[in-house]
């Protein structure tokens, strides 16, 4: 009862903010609504007692990815008229992708519809830690898959960096170790001069 009320409240916020992401006129508002959508989705996961996944969503997406995203959107001078121009041309492709997603969602939801009792999570024993259970699975049963995913990500990181890294010849660089090593004798020269006399 109480859970249902909370779920519908979060669900409503999630839907409204997800809609606002694509309808907002200002791209920065759109990104901020996306942040709200992520945050609400993580709250709904918390209701499912998936606390590790919920908080990881906030830490990774809200805390890091979306910050950089927001950063880029704020820096870009986005011309809304030019973005709108492609609307009708891209519409058929968008409809196909959207249709596929709707079909997939229906399949997932209808599959669970027939045994809806089993979808409720069983109450956990006291002292049960979601994070511990997930960690145990990832590092034992699915260790190879997990490590392969990690290596794929690492390759992607290196590729992204090497594709975008530009070395500028005129960028100035200081070696902090050299700065720390600097001694007074190298920089200052004491000169003994005779006192000036009035002419």
């Amino acid at each position, binding site marked *: *009862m*109480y859970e249902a009320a909370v779920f519908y409240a979060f669900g409503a916020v999630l839907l409204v903010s997800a809609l606002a992401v694509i309808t907002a006129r*200002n791209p*920065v*508002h759109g990104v*901020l609504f996306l*942040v709200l959508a992520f945050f609400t989705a993580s709250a709904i996961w918390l209701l499912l007692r998936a*606390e*590790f996944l919920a*908080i*990881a969503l*906030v*830490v990774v997406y*809200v*805390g*890091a990815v979306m*910050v*950089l995203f*927001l*950063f880029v959107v*704020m*820096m870009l001078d986005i011309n809304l008229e030019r973005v709108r121009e492609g609307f009708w041309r891209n519409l058929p492709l968008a409809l196909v992708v959207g249709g596929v997603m709707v079909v997939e969602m229906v399949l997932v939801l209808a599959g669970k519809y027939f045994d809806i009792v089993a979808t409720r999570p069983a109450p956990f024993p006291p002292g049960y*830690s*979601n*994070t511990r259970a997930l960690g145990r699975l990832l590092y034992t049963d699915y260790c190879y898959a997990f490590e392969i995913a990690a290596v794929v990500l690492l390759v992607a990181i290196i590729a992204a960096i090497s594709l975008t890294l530009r070395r500028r010849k005129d960028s100035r660089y200081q070696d*902090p170790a050299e700065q720390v090593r600097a001694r007074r004798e190298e920089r200052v020269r004491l000169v003994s001069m005779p006192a000036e006399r009035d002419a």
Partner: protein
Amino acid sequence: MREWWIDKADWLQGQGTWGPMVYATAMALAGIIAIVAPLFACVAYLTLWERKLIGWIQIRIGPNRVGPLGLLQPVADGVKLLMKEIIVPSSANKGLYILAPIVMLMPALAAWAVIPFAPEVVLADINAGLLYIMALSSLGVYGVIVAGWASNSKYAFLGAMRSAAQMVSYELAMGFALVVVLMVSGSLKLSDIVVSQGRGLFASMGLNFLSWNWLPLLPILVVYFVSGVAETNRAPFDVVEGESEIVAGHMIEYSGMAFALFFLAEYMNMILISTLTVVMFFGGWQPPIDTYLFAEVPPFKFGLFWLFVKTFVVVSMFLWLRATFPRYRYDQIMRLGWKIFIPITIVWIVVVGIWMQTPWSLWR
């Protein structure tokens, strides 16, 4: 009086479906007020303590005009800020401009829900407490970015860009440092982390303070604390505000209470990071040595007393840093975060992991 309350609480819990809900909500609200109200008082007096301490460090007197020893200075400052007009720049994005300080303050307050003040004295002792703290501390950056963007001012935007890069960078080092703490205590629950520090060879000899995490994890403590200073945008990492270059960064257009909220959030975050340092590395509510005096005699027997004393010392370190060091250059801040702290913490995760597998492991 006490019986009357218990009687009323029992009556409320017996009222159908809604009774227990109302009861739970009321209890949670009471807990929140019991935490937040003293916290605001601490923030107010931290500002005074900062000015006093920095004054003494620099051989000045500090504020001494309002009230005895300047003790009413925070009240005077608060009243002044409340009476000032909140100016909204004409081309600012009004909604976001007003929202930004609130976004800044909210996570700084919400994080206190999982802080254990004494054994069993915690608002929500959740299993994923440490993760919750990490999630909330990663939200603070939005306040700064949104403020910088919504003000529609170049200085504010520069401050926002600096802070976005700086806070995201140092969050990584902080997260890795917390991973080490989580490894040695084997739990994400903050109260378990505190309890796990009270065990060990030295603790069994009565010298609890040598068993706390700060000694075996000293490099991690340093990384965590310095990252904490950078994360809260305090001196010497305060390029976000950088009075001498970008005037006040993201807060430049704010006045009155809107500015005060940023100010509150900054000090609240400072106290929060200090409390977390104490919880993770200095044994939280535990007394430093095991004696009759600290176990039985008030005020020493209260966990809150020790948490307060330790947090006070760590907060004073923040102020000491500010009074001592000149501001870091921006490229050096980035270098320190990415090229020094993150490698150190990653190496230490491996070192501590191997250490825990050897017979000389301290954490069993």
